[in-house]
């Protein structure tokens, strides 16, 4: 069969440079300075508390083994202490904890007929307010395919709870992209714009209209269909037709947003990155690095300003045999019972994650955006929903917040909040920094003090 040349083929090999004229045109209205971005980097299965939290109680601290890979970045992050999600207390080790990392909600125990995590997640909250300012309102990335089935032994939770930290509403998780190529393509594709090919001039209104009009007319039609179906049927339950309707509307809004010139930040030069090969990379390390690179690219091209990344889903059994001396899956290793041999392997795995964060943060730091580096204009939260992976304890979560938030954060120290401070106090602080004027978020009791 003759293989038609797809948009993807057109993209292949052209790399990122070719899309830049498009970006420039789209941003008829350029931002004068880089925007503030937020990234939320989730690590499953906790840490060894003794290797994470430094002793002492001053502003300054000695690097602990888990943090060692981040030693060179000590002046670029705040080590956060004593934050927690009280709704996770006394419940199963993973399922009711992970989906509320960014929301603080209460997860209903269910096998899946009435999923409920009690709250919207921080990234989606930001997107509700600011999402139309960029081609992608948010960008969700991860490594693991969502888990299926019910964990009966773990108390009857649907396992898909553990696969999402982004929740559009308490009942609807936002799927994450785990295939690098699809994630990459998403950055350079807009529902209204076929492809950024050599010579295409999207500023020409005729071209824009021609490209756009078909999809919008198709969507207008199916929206009508959905409305009609909705009128005919009515049930008390949340209706899949509503979900369909909202999704179509959201794709339409993206098209409309793309038609309006969005105020975008345009970076000079190039950020070379090959279009990834199809499928899941052969090794976990390669997979993680690619996803981090793509996340970086999404910020660099100003395609989005809010992103989430899951190094792994709840209870991930990712095989870390590629680390010397480590054998077995991550979750099994996290239950080390403080036996020295196992603990040592677990620590290596956790520390490996810090090294990936160091790679990511160093890359952000190396990117000059008109006089300041990308990390200066960002807020990157990294951490887990458990402290001790062996015991599942929810207090004093291992967290760090990197970046200067365009001068709203003062990194290079640790911030010891009062014991048992809601994690949502931090979320509220970040929400406000993203320009959203709210005085409550989740179970916040106030704005976390001392970040600046």
């Amino acid at each position, binding site marked *: *069969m*003759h293989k*038609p*040349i*797809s*948009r993807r083929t*057109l993209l292949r090999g052209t790399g990122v440079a070719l899309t830049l004229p498009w970006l420039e045109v789209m941003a008829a209205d350029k931002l004068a300075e880089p925007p503030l971005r937020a990234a939320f980097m989730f690590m499953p299965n906790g840490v060894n508390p003794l290797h994470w939290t430094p002793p002492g109680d001053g502003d300054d601290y000695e690097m602990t083994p888990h943090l060692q890979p981040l030693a060179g970045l000590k002046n670029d992050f705040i080590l956060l202490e004593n934050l927690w999600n*009280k709704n996770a*207390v006394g419940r199963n*080790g993973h399922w009711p904890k992970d989906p509320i990392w960014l929301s603080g909600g*209460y997860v*209903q*125990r269910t*096998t*899946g*007929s009435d*999923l*409920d995590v009690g709250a919207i997640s921080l990234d989606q909250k930001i997107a509700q307010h600011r999402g139309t300012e960029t081609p992608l309102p948010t960008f969700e990335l991860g490594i693991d395919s*969502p888990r*299926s089935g*019910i964990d*009966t*032994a773990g108390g*009857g939770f*649907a396992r*898909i709870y553990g696969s999402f930290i982004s929740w*559009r509403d308490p009942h609807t998780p936002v*799927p994450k992209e785990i295939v690098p190529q*699809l994630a990459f393509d998403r950055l350079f594709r807009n529902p209204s714009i*076929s492809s950024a*090919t*050599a*010579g*295409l*001039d999207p500023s020409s209104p005729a071209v824009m209209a021609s490209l756009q009009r078909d999809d919008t*007319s*198709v969507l207008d*039609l*199916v929206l009508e269909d959905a409305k009609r*179906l909705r009128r005919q*049927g*009515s*049930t*008390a*339950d949340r209706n*899949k*037709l509503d979900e*369909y309707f909202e*999704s179509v509307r959201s*794709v339409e809004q993206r098209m409309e947003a793309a038609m309006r010139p969005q105020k975008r930040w345009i970076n000079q030069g190039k950020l070379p990155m090959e279009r990834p090969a199809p499928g899941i990379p052969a090794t976990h390390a390669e997979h993680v690095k690619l996803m981090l690179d793509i996340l970086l690219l999404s910020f660099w091209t100003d395609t989005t300003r809010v992103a989430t990344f899951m190094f792994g889903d709840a209870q991930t*059994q990712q095989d870390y*045999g590629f680390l010397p001396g480590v*054998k*077995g*899956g991550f979750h*099994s290793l996290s*239950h080390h019972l403080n036996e020295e041999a196992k603990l040592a392997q677990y620590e290596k795995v956790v520390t490996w994650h810090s090294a990936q964060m160091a790679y990511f943060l160093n890359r952000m730091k190396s990117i000059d955006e008109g006089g300041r580096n990308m990390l200066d204009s960002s807020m990157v939260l990294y951490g887990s929903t458990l402290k001790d992976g062996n*015991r*599942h304890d929810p207090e004093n979560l291992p967290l760090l917040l990197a970046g200067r938030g365009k001068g709203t954060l003062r990194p290079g120290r640790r911030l010891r909040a009062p014991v*048992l401070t809601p994690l949502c106090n931090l979320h509220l602080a970040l929400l406000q920094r993203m320009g959203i004027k709210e005085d409550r978020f989740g179970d916040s009791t106030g704005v976390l003090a001392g970040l600046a």
Partner: protein
Amino acid sequence: MIIFTIGLWLAATPEAFTQTVRPVLEQNCGACHSAKSRVNFLKAATAADIQAQRGLWRNVATQIRNRTMPPAPAKITEAERLDVAHWIDDRLRETACDAGSFAGPALVKRLNRREYRNTIRDLLGLDLAVNEVFPADGTGGEGFDTNGETLYMPPLLMERYLEAAQQILDRVIITPPLNRTISANAMRPDYTGTGPRRPVLPGDIISVPLTVYADGDYEVRVLQERSDQHPLTYTVLLDGKEAGTGTIPRYESKGPNGATRVVRVSKGSHTFGVRANEYPLEIYSLTLTQRVGEVSSEKRAAHYRLFQMESGETPLNPRVAARRLIARFLRQAFRRPVTDAEVDRLVALYDRAAVRDDPYEERVKLALKAVLVSPSFLLRAEQPSAKPGIQPLTDHELANRLSYFLWSTMPDAELASLADQGKLQDAKVLAAQVERLLDDPRSRVFANSFIGQWLGTKDVGGRVAPTINDVADFYTPEVAADLREEPVMLLQHIIGENRSLLDLLNANYTYLTERLVRFYQLDLPLKGNVFQRVQWPDDRRAGVLGMGAVLALTSSFKQTSPVLRGAWVLDTLFGTPVPPPPPDIPPLDATGARKQKITLRQKLLQHRENQTCATCHNLMDPIGFGLENFDWMGRWRTQDNGQPIDSAGALPGGDRFNGPVELRAVLLKRQDEFLRHLTAKVMGYALGRALQDADHCTVQQLVDTVVKDGYRARTLIREIALSVPFRHSQADARLAEPPAAPPKRQKLPEK
């Protein structure tokens, strides 16, 4: 009615309620849940009173089993917890039919990835690898990816549906390649000179707007008066940007000379232009030709199937033909009759493309694209009846339920035609269709997706067993695939031959490949890696409990787990899960055992000295002990940690066994409980929702019928298809039972 209980706990008699259950609840819950409180389940003085508060009592069982109640510090013992929860469950099940029939609501659910892929295949003859582009489906309800509630429709998926629709149609519809020649006259209508040529001075541009319908490479050919003095160079401009230069050599030949330049163009409207460089040009025309490779015979066949005409042929009256095509396609894609108004709306899309003079095929494509992203295609949306109570589904809704249940795809022509004739609600016709669908090879998809998800064996080789060096000589990705396939083959055989469902527990045969023979270390003269049925020489591996996939799935890394295996049997095979461990108890670790030179069994026995742990572990561990001869990969062994395997066990009910054969015999005493759970699972898969309290009436009726009919597989499937909830909906039913009141939050420590 006979009620089968696993016999390990309190019998579901009314007396047990007044003698045991209620007193335990009174003592542990009475302080808060007095008869006056809002959650006043203790109002029930006798077992009969429970009927008036069924939902509340189901909640009581769930919360007690899940440890959300009573709050700490609770005095309830583990044995009491188990007894009370099981008594309530059994009682509710036993009395489920007292409340009358139940059908569940009309369902609205999205096609899952498997269903979408199969439906596209049957609709258009194209196999699209959607698993690579659509995000994974969630599972829930009874634990399957057919569960409507967890089949979300996020915006990301909507985008992918739009792209997939375009891709699918581009792959089955052949649009004649673009080949347009525009004369210089047409490009420069302002020029008043005579003759076919138009001059272009150096630096000047002559251009023309053109729409292209496919991304791809296009040849731009410029025809120019011959030059006898010097070669001429020109630049091709695409949307005003340079896209390459061409040269026309001098004295090439007499008359007009041409030169061709290939440019890559995306779908859409573009401006093609030619700029003269150092010398003036005398242009005759500009030709744009799409470069296409050879069109495959498959694509031509798919095109013909849709258009009922060869590619390139245009019907005499395109609009009439298009309307007919759209109406036919719409009927198939929506899997129900369509109205003229629905067809008209799509023809309007055709017209829209016709106005701008798109080729015929592209106009049709635009209309069909809307079909493929429309809610009636992507969702299975049943219409709730306007009348209250239990009402039959329409024939087409029923055809869809049946077809997606057994084939994971759209109804075929025969089902559609029976539905059109209104015959499907006839029980005899429906039963015959069940047989026909099961006889069709397509029913394999049911065996595959049902058992893989029910047993959890679909994860083997992916999540469950990492590739590791010390097993590499007998365990490979191909072996893992065969292990996943083994239970599928068994179920397929049971359905195909209409055998007893108890074969799942005790079949003395299985299907193996040469690879599996090596994996199981068997002495069998089986060659080749096509599955063949083999008779087991003895019963040690009979049924799914002897299968490597199940045994590996229920093991820890490099060590067996009697606890996991026992819990798996109780939960997955019998639907009687034990409560989760109290929070924050880490799983048992075997390294301690290795150090103490004792077996895992001995270590587990030590652990059961703790009375709190013992209640549940006395249920789980012995079952696992009976399987200890199977190592963590499911291979036979006689030693663990240098000690001989002791595979004896005793259940609290008094049943004793030694080894897998005797264990299986003990489990088979509870064959009806197994059947009841299997029935609930198949029903959950078929309906695509979580079963509710009221559904257990149907489950028990199905069990009774299947038992009477010798446990035959097809009886179960047929009776499910004929059951009230499968053929009806109930406008006043909800998809889920009202959620449990949130448990009281634990009091927070003072700051």
